[in-house]
């Protein structure tokens, strides 16, 4: 309970598990892999992902970075924490964001043992229009996946985890999210925060919330994808 398992994925003859504090079966690796891979246009960008992984009986909270130092163009690093159901409902999740670290200088040993749970936490609040949109997306009674458009999706990270923290325990496993450059239709995430939507308009069943130019009503502007 005092430590959380961690996983590191990176490019080594393919994007794969590089280090972990616990063994993963082939099926578990396959289930995790799509959530810990990404495509980046911006070299200084990052993506945050949170989703329940049933085959691991836990919740994955991870961050992905470009890895331009690796030989293959488009290579990425991904560091993820694997929270048990008990940890998900009993610890202050906001403190975990500071534990997500990109590897440096090929040093992977630190990822081979469980990470002590941090004391205290740092919380960077999202700009108010974005925070309102995220809160509305989380609380929406509509079960459709939601896409929140925001030019700098990284600004949503702290608020997404804070909203996970604030959700009733029974609902946390069902709250999945991802920040990315372009949101995808038919993605497995309940909430995507992105600067744009990929693919032809109207392909997906997502609700798009665009708080970048908010109307005067209290509710963010919405439309079908």
């Amino acid at each position, binding site marked *: 309970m005092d430590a959380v398992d961690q996983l590191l994925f990176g490019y080594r003859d393919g*994007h*794969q598990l590089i280090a972990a504090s616990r063994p993963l079966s082939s099926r578990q*690796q396959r289930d995790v*892999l799509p959530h810990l891979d990404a495509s980046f246009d911006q070299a200084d960008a990052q993506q945050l992902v949170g989703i329940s992984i049933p085959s691991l009986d836990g919740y994955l909270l991870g961050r992905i970075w470009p890895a331009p130092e690796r030989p*293959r163009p*488009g290579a*990425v690093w991904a560091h993820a924490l694997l929270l048990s159901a008990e940890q998900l409902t009993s610890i202050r999740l906001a403190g975990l964001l500071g534990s997500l670290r990109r590897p440096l200088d090929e040093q992977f040993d630190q990822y081979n043992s469980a990470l002590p749970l941090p004391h205290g936490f740092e919380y960077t609040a999202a700009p108010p229009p974005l925070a309102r949109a995220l809160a509305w997306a989380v609380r929406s009674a509509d079960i459709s996946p939601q896409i929140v458009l925001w030019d700098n999706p990284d600004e949503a990270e702290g608020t997404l985890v804070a909203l996970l923290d604030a959700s009733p325990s029974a609902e946390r496993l069902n709250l999945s999210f991802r920040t990315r450059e372009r949101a*995808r239709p038919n993605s497995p995430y309940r909430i995507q925060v992105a600067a744009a939507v990929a*693919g032809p308009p109207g392909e997906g069943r997502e609700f798009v919330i665009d708080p970048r130019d908010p109307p005067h009503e209290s509710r963010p502007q919405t439309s079908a994808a």
Partner: protein
Amino acid sequence: MKFMLLGEQATGKSSLLVALYGALVNRRAGDLRIVRTVDDVEFLSRGLLAFGRQESLRRTEVDSNAALLIELARGEQVVTVDIPDRSGELLKHMLDTRVWDPDLLAQISLASGALLFLRADELAPLEEVEMQAEPNGNAPTDEAEPITQPHVPGAEWSPALMPADSRAVDLLQSMLGQRSHPLPLAIIISAWDRVKALISPPPSPSEWLADNVTLLDQYLTSNGERLPHAIFGVSAQGGDFSAGLPGDMLGEDPWDRSFVVGPHGERDTLASPILWLLDATT
């Protein structure tokens, strides 16, 4: 018609799609014309821009849902071609763990044909190619070893350690086990510019496969009825960007640099593997 792209990571799947798209929209595809694009082609356009800057494509992420989905006309015939571009890591993981990827499994029975990608410079080390190119006719002093995964002393054997030709045969065997009718197969030997540059005269792709990927060649020959096939050499980039393109290519557009060599060594258009598949399925 749906065609599967089969290949592990960095075998040139996305590069061929980008080069093919460039050839189609710039009328370098012989009799084959593009009627319209059905799906998002942003990744293809971005790929062409990268080729224009002499940059290799970024790897395809694991959860990518990109595809080349276009309507093509060949004379009076119009056909919709759907080629999903799945990440090579999915196939690698599947072969390593011997567990079917659900999407790939679903595609097997639906696909009209497939393109299987192998890299020339991984299957035949360049030093070996250079030795074969020696004009003095002397045989190389050592038999070149096929490329395998690095052996870690004490490590247990696993499918991940199989050489590339064994993995290709393993994949085809598994696919035939899931499919009752023939699967037309275009074998794509990518990075063909490396072979062309280092062997004089260059072998045909069929000869090259028989010499360098013996197990796969024998398997294809033995299963010709269930796996009707043709072998193509492809250079989607036209050359090695990291080493610098030859001077005569520097001013060329990406769709003029890329090339395909047909099964018997004839230069052909980027569309020829697709044309062969269309013929093989009708």
